[in-house]
């Protein structure tokens, strides 16, 4: 059972990562490579605060989210002031650079990582409770992104993606909207990182490498950008695939690169054959039923 719980939690966390990344790249139109490093920031912050400073785990988790959120604003603010494209370049630097920093500090455990991270819930309520926590957060994040994308904010995000200059010409501030979208998505990734750290209780830099970025991007592209269920489908599928090839009994040294090839290959195939992904987004944004109800009233 423990093995199954581990898989459910991993899949749940990837659904959270893919859904929050869909907010950034799909709805916000922001290209970022740094999603895994915000995941790492949440994990490390929460692990260090609770392990070395005795902060209660729940508080440490929230602090992990906050640190990821603040770091993402610090990254986005200068890059988005210039132009959208610079965010991608800055995010590559941030992803690679921060991971190097983590590898070279003693308080982060260096390349060997952190062990003995305090557990959460499991001792008192069993592993099932943690599975439920992750699933609840996952559903909450899916609902949150759905809610944001369908209401007044979704309308503004659609308009901003359509034509940024026209968006400014009606008095809307594209820069702060992008920063807010990026911060929320990255903050969610940070919280997912904290959830990861306190279940598996061991984190190391290699778990947050740039390959993860490719994996999360693949989930969103294959599943379907700008849809509620696309990233969910993508995360499930992309997690199932590597599990499926483990039964081929390939040596671990081959497995990693094969996964990488698989992700890249899938993105390429989908870009050509089905660019809209498995769950296609509608071309047209429509308001939530609330508005329709008022019209027919």
């Amino acid at each position, binding site marked *: 059972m423990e093995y199954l719980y581990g898989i459910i939690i991993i899949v749940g966390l990837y659904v959270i990562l893919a859904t929050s990344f869909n907010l950034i790249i799909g709805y916000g139109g922001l290209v970022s490579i740094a999603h895994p490093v915000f995941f790492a920031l949440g994990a490390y912050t929460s692990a260090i605060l609770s392990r070395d400073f005795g902060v209660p785990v729940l508080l440490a988790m929230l602090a992990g989210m906050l640190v990821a959120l603040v770091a993402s604003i610090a990254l986005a603010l200068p890059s988005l002031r210039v132009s959208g494209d610079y965010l991608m370049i800055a995010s590559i630097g941030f992803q690679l650079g921060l991971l190097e920093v983590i590898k070279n500090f003693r308080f982060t455990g260096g390349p060997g990582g952190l062990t003995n991270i305090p557990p959460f819930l499991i001792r008192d309520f069993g592993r099932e409770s943690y599975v439920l926590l992750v699933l609840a957060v996952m559903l909450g994040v899916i609902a949150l992104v759905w*809610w*944001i994308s369908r*209401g*007044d*904010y979704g*309308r*503004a995000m*659609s*308009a901003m*993606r*359509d*034509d940024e*200059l*026209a*968006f*400014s*010409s*009606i*008095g*809307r*501030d*594209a820069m702060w*909207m992008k920063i*807010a*979208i990026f911060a*929320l998505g990255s903050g969610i990734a940070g919280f997912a990182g904290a959830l990861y750290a306190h279940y598996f209780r061991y984190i190391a830099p290699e778990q947050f490498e740039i390959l993860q970025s490719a994996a999360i991007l693949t989930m969103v592209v294959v599943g379907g950008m700008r849809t509620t269920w696309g990233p969910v489908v993508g995360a499930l599928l992309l997690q199932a695939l590597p599990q499926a090839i483990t039964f081929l009994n390939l040596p671990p040294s081959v497995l990693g690169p094969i996964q990488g090839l698989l992700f890249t290959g899938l993105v390429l195939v989908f870009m050509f054959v089905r660019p809209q992904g498995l769950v296609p987004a509608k*071309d*047209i*944004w*429509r*308001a939530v039923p*609330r*508005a329709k109800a*008022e019209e027919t009233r």
Partner: protein
Amino acid sequence: MAGVLEVKNLSKSFDGIVVARNVDLTLQSGRVVGLIGPNGAGKTSLFNLICGVVKPDDGMVLLEGKSLDGQPFHQRVRDGLSRTWQHTRLFPSLPVIDNLLVGTHDYPGERLINVLFGPARLRAHDTIARDKAQGLLGKMGLGSVANDLVSDLPYGQQKLVGVARALMGDAKCLLLDEPMAGVEGQAYAAMQRVVREVAESGVAVCVVEHNIAFVRDLCDEGVFMFSGAILARGSLAELIRDPQLTELYFGH
């Protein structure tokens, strides 16, 4: 009398090509100024300079006496400046009404904090904005297509949607960039009526337009631009009669 919008000594050149040369322009409340001149005279560039899309080399723009220097485009719009585009620049992924709803002066839905913690405020705003948008669309004769896609509308109607969108935000000064290009028939009449009504409500209007009949019927004053500079201003009848300007305009 001080104008709603005052452009003072505005100059701009790109690599030696002058698009604005010491331009002075005042737009008064309730009056329509027609900005005319041949292609490349710098009319649209002047709009871009006023809006802050392009930064001037020299000179300043004042809205109700306050300098707009250094302010980004969207902030100028929130202060009361509004413009339309020659090629509409509507939001194709949004239905007609939503193109308008996103353009209200204050749009609480653009801040995540309101989305998460102020749903009642958003609802209240939505009701008011919908009434205003329906009213504007009704005036333009577009009430029946409110839920259609903008790309499904004939071009003339798209232009009207562009003007309606620009009017959602309580503008004090409205800049119209070739509102009549590609507009015919009913849409033409609607555009004329709406621009006049807007001016009568106290908005300062400036129209860049090649349709001289439209300009003559609508504008209180004409301003003739050539090669980045204002060469003449006066009544439209005077400008049209001036043989020198006619020659510059048609390039004979």
